[in-house]
Structure formats: C-alpha cells, structure tokens
C-alpha cells in the first residue's frame, strides 16, 4: 500500500444524534493525514456500505452513544461482510468494557471508549487497517 492516503468513512448509524465525539474524531484523523468522509446522521447499514464501496474506503468508524452497540455493531459488521468488503469496522462511544469482547467476537476490529487520546484514536485506526492489509 505504501504512500496511499488512508481513507476512512465515519457515520452515525440509526437514530442516535450524539455527534460531538465523531466530529472530534474526524478532525483528529484528518490532522493525522487521513482522508475522512463523514456521512453524517441517520445512516443505514446500506448507505454506509454503499459509501464505503464508492469511496474505496480503508476503514469504517461508527459512533454509538445510545446503548445500541450490541445490536447495531454486529449488524453493520454483517453488512460489510455480505457486501464482500474486507475493511475493518471500528466503534467509538459509550461502550461498557464487558461488551468489548462480545463486539470483537462479532467481527468488530476495535472499540474506542470515552477518554481515548488523539494518539490512541489514530493508532487504533491505523493498526486496524494494517492488520487487515497483512491478513
């Protein structure tokens, strides 16, 4: 992959409108040299997959604050696989520690909790992308 600028799709899936975190993450990833495509609020798994295909994205990031992660996270992961995309899905937001393992078992590449530093955010996204590239 080399000099390819990493391209990340960020979106809010479903009804949850808490967008403070995802907007900050968008700027952090941009500052780190990535290309960020923020789809905005009220996206569906279909609209996110379509955008990822169209933009040839390297990763998808979802932000979840309404305790819907155990339902919507795996649903999104399934939709990505069903579309034949091999890119990591990262979830950020309010996710209790004990749910992280379950999410990881359903195909989510990484979970970023509240208080993650900018460095952690960037490293998590980069690691998830390179793990997929090596696989």
């Amino acid at each position, binding site marked *: 992959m080399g000099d390819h600028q990493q391209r990340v799709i960020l979106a809010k899936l*479903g*009804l*949850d*409108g808490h*967008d*403070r975190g995802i*907007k*900050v993450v*968008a*700027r*952090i990833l*941009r500052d780190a040299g990535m290309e*960020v495509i*923020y*789809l*905005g*609020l*009220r996206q569906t798994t279909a609209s996110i997959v379509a955008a990822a295909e169209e933009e040839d994205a390297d990763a998808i990031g979802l932000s979840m604050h*309404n*305790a*819907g992660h*155990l*339902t*919507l996270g795996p*649903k999104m992961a399934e939709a990505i696989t069903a579309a034949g995309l091999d890119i990591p899905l990262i979830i950020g937001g*309010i996710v*209790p*520690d004990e749910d992280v393992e379950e999410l990881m078992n359903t195909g989510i590449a990484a979970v970023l*909790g*509240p*208080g993650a*530093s*900018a*460095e952690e955010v960037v490293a998590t996204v980069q690691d998830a992308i390179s793990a997929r590239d090596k696989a």
Partner: protein
Amino acid sequence: MGTEENQELNARKAWELEYQKASLRDSNFETMSGVPVEPVYGDDLFPGQYPYTRGIYPSMYRSRLWTMRMFAGFGTAEDTNLRFKELLRNGGTGLSTAFDMPTLMGRDSDSEWSLGEVGRAGVAVDTLADMEDLFADIDLSQVSTSMTINGPAATLLAMYVAVAEQTGVEPHQLAGTIQNDILKEYQAQKEYIYPPRPSMRIVTDMVKYTTAEMPKWHPISISGYHIREAGSTAAQELAFTLANGFSYVEAAIAAGQNVNEFGKRLSFFFNSHSDFFEEIGKFRAARRIWARWMKERYGATDEKAMLCRFHTQTAGVSLTAQQPEINIARVGIQALAAALGGTQSLHTDSFDEALALPTEDAARIALRTQQIVAHETGVVNVADPLGGSPYVEWMTDEMERQAEAIFAHLDDLGNGSILEGTFNGIENGYFVGEIADAAYRFEREVNSGRRIIVGVNEFTDGDNPEDRNLLRIGAETEEYQLKRLNDVKTKRNQEHVNSALSEITAVASDPTRNLMPAIIAAVKTYATEEEIANAMEVVFGTYVEKAIV
C-alpha cells in the same frame, strides 16, 4: 443625602416590602454555629428587582428550595412508573421523563429505525396506552411533570392531557414543562423531524393552546444544556439559548400572542459545568439579559414576563468513564454552582452516566448530593451570596458582553430579526460550526495535557473496571413493547384512527388552524406517535442536516 444614596435606600425599602410579603420556610436562617444571617447582603440591587441579576424572587430559597427534579426513564412505561414512585417516596418533588430514541424521533417501536433502541436510553411511548402505564397511580393534579421531548412534543403533550382527562383532571390543573425547544435540535441535539419553519409553526400552536387552556404549563423550556453538551463554551451556551428564546418570542408575537401572557410561561434549561465562577456568572447574566431584552426590545410590561426562570442539570459531558465514583465530587461542585446561581430546579447526574444509564443506587446518590447542598451547606439562607464580589460581577459582565456580540451577529444575519438570523444560522452551519470548533479546542487542550481532567490524563491510578455494576436493559423490553404495540393496534377502531389522522393532515395544510385539538383527538383513538408524525410529514416534509465536520 445624594440622589444615588436615595435610590439605594429606595431599592432596599422596596425589597423589604416584597420580602415581608413572602412566606418563609420553617428554619432559623442561621449558621451552623448559631450566627443569624440576613436574607441578602449588599446595597444597590436586590433579588426580585429588575434586571434580576441577583435572583428572580425577593426571598429566594428562604421561601422555597429549588425543585429537585430527577430525570428518569428506561425500559417500559411500567418500569419507569415504578422509578417515579420511588423518587416521589424519596423526597423528589417533580417528575421528569426521559423518552427512548425512537420516541424522541417520532418513530414507533416496530419501525426498522428503532431496532436496538427501544427502551434503551429512556422509556418507549408509542400510544396513549403507554402513557396510561407511565403515570398510573400518580395524581396528575398534584405533581409537576417535565417531559423532555421536542420533534413530536405536540403528540406527547396531547397524550398527557388525554391521560389526565381519564382520571378527571382538567388541562388547567396540569403543571409542568415540555421541552419543545426545536431550534436547539438543529444546532446541537439533532432530534428534529420537520424543517425549521414548519417546526416553529407547531411550537407556536402549542404556545397558543397552552396559553389558553393550560395556565400552569410551560410550553417551551429553552435549552442550552444540549448546546453545551455538544461542545460549546459557556458564553455560546448562554447566547445561543437566549437567542433561541428571542426567536420564540418573535414568532409568538408575529402570531398575534401577547408578550405579557406567554412571556410568563417561558422557562429555560442550563448546564452547570465545572468552571465554578464562569457558571455562576453565566446564570446571573442570563437573568439580566433576558429581562432587558423582554422589556426593551419586545415591549414586555409585566415583570413576570421578564423573568428568566431556569432548570439546571449538571454536566453529563464532564463525567468520566475512568474512576467513575469521583464523578460524585464533580456533581457536588456543579450542583453548588447551580444553587449559587439561583436555579429554580436541579437535576444532579449519576456518577455512572459516562458508562450507562444510571442504576437506582447511583440515582439515589445523585439526589442525596443536591440534598446536601440544600440542607447542609447553608447557601440557601442568603440570596445571591456571591453578588458584589468583584470577580463574580466582572464574570457576569463578561458573559453578557460575549453574548451581546453573538446577538449582534444574529441580528445582522437576520436583517433585524433574531428569528430570521437563527434560521439563517441553522442553514449556513454557523451554530454547528461554532460548537464543533469549541469542542475540538477543548479536546486538543485535554490531549496536550494543558487541561487536566482528573482520572483521564492525570491521576489515573485506582480505576477498577471490574467492580462496576451497570444498569443493563435486555432485549425483553423490546419484545414486550412490540407485543404491547401490536395489541393496541389490534384492539383500536381503525376507522376512527384513519379519520383522526386525515384531520391532522388537513389542519397541517391550513396555517390558520391550531394543530393541538386535532392531535389530542387522534391520540384518544390510540393512533401511534409515528402515524401522527407521518400525518404532518406529508405536508411539512423532513429535515436532513448537511454533514459538516
């Protein structure tokens, strides 16, 4: 004696007269050591006097403590009903309802959008049947109820009126507040259904209806809370909130309402964050600015229509997921700032809210925290105890100065109308851009270590994630609610539903008619929230925000 001294003397005399009329709580009003204290200190401006910088009542908390209003709602309506009764038994004095995301967005539990969200972040309400369960065995003529809902606010208010009617309680007996502040949805919270202009028509219809039928009801709670949570500064929270207030006033005046009538029924909702003096300055400035604008710009002559009454909630966004128990200290400090700022009601956040919805224990600790402020600290004995402090007065002036600069920008944007300036600011991304910039600045400071958040970027030892006991809402809530909705749909008279919905669409198409009676009629047929939302959507359209980072 100079004129100035005369005025000061007159101000004191006028205040004393008002204070003597007030009934006081049964208390000695002395310190813990037995030193008696005056109801207020200082010489020039007194509480209850225009522009109310020092408080809206002459006797403030000596007459009545703030209402301890704890926001609650999760799972099914029956679950939340139990929590309500528990809060009332524990000395809570007002009910406050949190609805789940589908309810807030005007979606039914069986909508495909609702998957994974039913009953999670609040209570699920689809039809009047859920509202009947929510308020079962609570005498609605005796409590004051706050409902936090905006996009579909008219429908939820209609359901509340209908439930009350079933138990023989008339609309004029109902006391409470519905948030119904749609403008801040486009700016911060993002729970809108229709575009801004038709949404303002619904709000104005509700103002008209409640002004005529529900004199004890506050039809809008103009809310800065969410603006702050979304990342704004204190001054932006103050300015955007009051500007939204001016917008509702301009819309109501344009609709022929009397500013002295509906002005009395407006109330506000602010955030109390951790920067202690900035918050207190913000609360004081809010009262002063609101009074001046209502009087000077909008021509209010009744003093009650100039009062900035407000509810306060401690800052959820300040709570940390790391070492969550230390959030109890943050909440205590924020609650104290709200009391010193003269709030009329207060919700204190539970320490576990950065992790999940609060457990019953955490909610109890939060209530106890504000009870300590009210009953142990003595701050309730003296009105505006920090008034006259050079720093506090300077901070109040500074908050006002920053807010006025923002009003001038919006006034300019709207060619002399704050309402049009606000519509334009929503359209051109001004509000969301300003808020996102402020949020990012804050995160950079935390990330660089220039701003210390205890437990997050400093003092991080002692976090024990394995000890946490969090509230979990299982899938059974969703299953129960889907069955309940299906049962209601099966039993209701579909013809009645259909004709009530058609009537809503007809009224929506005619801006001279008020939507409230048609919505009340529809909820009584057990039409669902989403059906009612759709009946208006065919006329009003929907709103999609441009995704701006």
